[in-house]
């Protein structure tokens, strides 16, 4: 006799269970009905705000977050509405986006590309964020932009100044409102020529990473076009806190202008060292020695204190601008938080409104539709004056501010004074400019995920 325990009933039972097991995933799987990644189905839509909350740019990140929260309030019809009334596009009603209430989640980039990608991924995968906004470093911006392109959602960059973000690393799903190093150079050059003459000898100290190099390249190019000579360009390690050893050679180099391609704490330290060595009191080649800091921010100005008096630089936005959009924004921000907004805060605020407006005009949250609505979009009333979102590289074109450390600031917030508002035509460049990846740089295809 065979000892097999196989019975007809047993076999039927087993195969029924196995069949059910195989079928299970198909019964319960939410079939990929969604037309695009994280399509909002409920009564609300989630935005992801990815800013540095720890690390060297934490203060800036905190300011960005305040501005983004303010933007969400305005979109939902709370508060005084801020720039909704001055914005030239009237698609936003103050009832959320496309009738859905706006909610947000936050993440910490730590100013590290790895950490930023991880927090963006968790906002996309776990919280169902439909777009990612913010950030305070070009490395992070490029890394997160790449992630959003792969995942199929929209990325609105915060403070990112390197040419690469909308240059060789430009992506169809990524958009930049902030200005870039090329624009800084183009805006600064005429002012430098006017204030310092056309036969200066410049010495560059440059933070040794991607942003530093593109800024150095841009400034060298635009100052040499003026007739300036570049004596030397020295790379400083990013982690340096003491720049004395880099300042001494400047004195003996025969240079009469020092350009500090540094940002944040780096810039505060290098500028302080330069002042301590008395560079600004020196006379070289029969001219007064000058210092230039191509990219300024309010927080850097506060950090450097007295030392920035008279030092020239450029900015994307300053709260002292006297246009309607700027006034509305500063009033709204000031009343809520008791201080004027920084230029990175303004960019993040504007990006949220621009995204929401594009959704309204496109009638969808589909990233491809939103991207199409943003491409070539001309607007005004968000604080920067007339602005164009160029279709070819997703870069905003608007006036650039040249600023100077104020001689007699009346409070801790007006440490910078506006020297000149450089008109947008002067900082325009073709999308295939060699500093922006040349002819090879393309946006690629828009990706809607799913």
């Amino acid at each position, binding site marked *: 006799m065979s000892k097999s325990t196989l019975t007809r009933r047993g076999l039927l039972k087993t195969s029924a269970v196995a069949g059910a097991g195989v079928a299970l995933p198909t019964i319960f799987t*939410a079939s990929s009905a969604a037309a695009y990644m994280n399509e909002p189905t409920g009564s609300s839509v989630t935005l992801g705000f990815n800013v540095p909350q720890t690390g060297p740019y934490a203060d800036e990140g905190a300011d960005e977050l305040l501005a983004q929260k303010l933007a969400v309030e305005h979109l939902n019809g709370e508060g005084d509405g801020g720039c909704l009334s001055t914005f030239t596009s009237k698609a936003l009603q103050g009832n959320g986006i496309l009738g859905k209430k706006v909610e947000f989640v936050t993440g910490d980039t730590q100013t590290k590309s790895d950490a930023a990608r991880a927090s963006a991924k968790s906002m996309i995968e776990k919280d169902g964020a439909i777009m990612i906004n913010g950030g305070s470093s070009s490395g992070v911006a490029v890394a997160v932009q790449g992630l959003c392109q792969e995942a199929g959602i929209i990325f609105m960059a915060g403070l990112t100044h390197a040419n690469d973000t909308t240059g060789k690393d430009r992506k169809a799903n990524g958009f930049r409102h902030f200005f870039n190093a090329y624009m800084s150079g183009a805006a600064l050059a005429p002012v430098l020529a006017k204030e310092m003459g056309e036969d200066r000898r410049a010495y560059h100290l440059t933070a040794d990473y991607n942003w530093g190099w593109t800024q150095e390249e841009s400034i060298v190019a635009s100052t040499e076009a003026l007739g300036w000579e570049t004596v030397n360009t020295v790379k400083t390690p990013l982690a340096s806190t003491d720049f004395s050893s880099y300042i001494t050679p400047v004195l003996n180099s025969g240079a009469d202008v020092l350009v500090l391609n540094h940002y944040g704490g780096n810039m505060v330290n290098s500028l302080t060292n330069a002042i301590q060595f008395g560079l600004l009191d020196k006379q070289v080649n029969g001219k007064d020695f000058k210092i230039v800091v191509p990219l300024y921010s309010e927080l850097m100005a506060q950090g450097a204190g007295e030392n920035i008096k008279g030092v020239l630089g450029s900015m994307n936005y300053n709260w002292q601008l006297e246009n309607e959009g700027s006034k509305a924004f500063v009033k709204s921000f000031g009343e809520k938080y008791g201080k004027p907004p920084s230029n990175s805060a303004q960019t993040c605020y504007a990006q949220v409104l621009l995204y929401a407006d594009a959704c309204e005009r496109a009638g969808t949250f589909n990233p491809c539709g939103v991207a199409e609505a943003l491409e070539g979009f001309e607007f005004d009333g968000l604080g920067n004056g007339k602005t164009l979102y160029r279709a070819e590289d997703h870069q905003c074109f608007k006036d650039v501010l040249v600023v100077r450390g104020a001689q007699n600031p009346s409070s801790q917030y007006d440490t910078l004074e506006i020297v000149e508002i450089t008109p947008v035509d002067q900082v325009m460049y073709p999308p295939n400019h060699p500093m922006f990846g040349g002819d090879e740089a393309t946006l690629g295809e828009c990706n809607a995920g799913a």
Partner: protein
Amino acid sequence: MLGLNKKDTALFLIVIALTILAPFILNPFPTNSAMAQFNAGYPDLMQRFVIFGIFAIGFNILFGLTGYLSFGHAAFLGVGSYAAVWMFKLFTYNVIPAIVVAVILAGLFSLLIGYISLRRSGIYFSILTLAFAQMSFALAYSVLSNPKFNLTNGETGLQVYGDDPQIFHGAGLPNLPHLFGWSMRGNNQMSFGAWDFNFNTGYYVCAVCMILAFYIAIRIFRSPFGMMLRAVKSNQTRMTYTGLNSRPYALAAFVISGMYAGLAGGLMAAVDPLAGAERMQWTASGEVVLMTILGGAGTLIGPILGAGFIKYFENIFSKINDAVLHSWFSFLPDGLEDVVVALIYPFVGKGWHLTLGMLFMLVVIFLPGGLVEGGQRIGRFTFRRRDAKGSDAERDAANQRNPAE
């Protein structure tokens, strides 16, 4: 089974069950409930759990067995990641060759660094490895990313661009890392009523790697080679007096753990094709030390627990911002709500490091054997009788840890 004794087999089966069922275990709360904040079952975090589990298992082979405290293991993880992304850039998006090359390169790199660093022991060894790791970080961050010779792409991180050669990239294949056509990003979401569970290709690839890595670690722990490593830890001088040259053993352990780190790095690149220099920084090296000690150095499952614990804190606690807190305590009267939120806020959100630091102190002071010891104490308390036999795989391992220093 598979050459393991009964206790180890049981532990191995538990680990297999936990990793395979992780999508269910980590998502215990319905998706739309207030508690969903604490769900960890989304692809990115699940991948991180197993990848850092592998990293910590490997680190434990060096630190737990030989007692050599390396502060530079993140460098091997970084080398693995860069190697994998270069494989993606040059050859194919298939993850198998990328992972193999990542392991081999990390192994070679650790052979070089280990050969030099192991000339010293104790604190000098730690400092040497730390120095090498910081050097690698600086190289990756700026030196090797200048426009003329761009190996690492600096702070932005190495990524795959559309104009990279990718010689073996087929037309029908996904434009993302894949395993013979299955995209690592592929995700199948199952819904049972209010619950959602994610089954992610990338996660299961990593999970299989971790199960293999765990199996190899058990075999090493139980082998004569493992015994030799423990001898190095308990008294290296005595070993030398008996005429044994212990350095090859220590070097072998160093290289093996370096290869584990390379595997973890390769997998990190496989699930997200970007390699950033920060993953080589000393903080990343310190993190794996914390994971191992928190879980229980010298135990088999401890490092995996420690890795999961830290990653959970980093990704879940750090996302609890003040708005979330206010929504939790909105049932309280206004003034009281603000007070409660103000009291809790410093410990969550961006203050998660603080909570983790306090927990770490508590563990080190009261549970020197890590979370594993905590588990054993609870187990002993609950099943006092069974403990009389003293049969527990982890306890054996933990006991062998004691003669340290």
